[in-house]
């Protein structure tokens, strides 16, 4: 299940950037996009490890952190879409 849904985002993310940018800026913007992504990837696993260590080996806090970060990401994406075309269900 996790593989199914995460894979779709990973392949769509650069296309997202390409859709909201001018053709000249796509490369530069994708560079900045990947910088942000890399900081997230860098810090996420150690934070999860620290949470697990604090909970003495239980994985529930780690699962909670993972789920909450995905939910927050979803909320910010909806906000970005709302800023671009408004909150209706119309197509971009």
């Amino acid at each position: 299940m996790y593989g199914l849904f995460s894979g779709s985002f990973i392949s769509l993310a650069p296309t997202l950037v390409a859709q909201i940018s001018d053709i000249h800026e796509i490369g530069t913007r994708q560079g900045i996009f990947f910088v942000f992504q890399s900081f997230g990837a860098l810090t996420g696993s150690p934070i999860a490890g620290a949470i697990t260590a604090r909970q003495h080996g239980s994985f529930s806090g780690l699962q909670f952190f993972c789920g909450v970060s995905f939910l927050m990401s979803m909320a910010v994406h909806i906000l970005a879409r709302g800023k671009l075309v408004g909150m209706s269900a119309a197509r971009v």
Partner: protein
Amino acid sequence: MISISDRYYQIFLSQGIVATFGSSAVFNCCTASVLSWFKRRRAYAFGIMVSGSSLGGVIMPIMMNKLIPRFGFPWTIRIVTFMILGLLAIAACTVRCRLPLRPKPFNVASFLSGIRDPVFSLTCVASFLFYWGLFIPFNYIILQAEKAGMRSEMAQYLLPIINAVR
């Protein structure tokens, strides 16, 4: 270089810095090339391209689990490297960029101007949050499965299963 490292800083330098420079260069070139050739079916093409990484994610863990007991860690890494070398040779011969290359002067301000666009900066923050959580299951699922009582031989196949579904 990882195959001959035995201290932490050597592994950090070889795997964490040199290998990532190379792999990110290859990845960005291939991405830019694929995106420049397609307009209508760009997402479709990019999805096929990224599925290659999932295929690698299926093959590599199983390959390394089978090879390490047989040949030891250094030679396993060298075998994987030779495999990657062969595949990269094919890629180097076949990847072409459609748009003519125009070297632009390096300008830090041009990198930062994108952040002023609110939609783009919100998308960046959203992807940061997404990647915060993304690699946690990949790193911890085997540990959690073994803690929950799954047999070690079966638990090793969880990572290839996740990557296969991607």
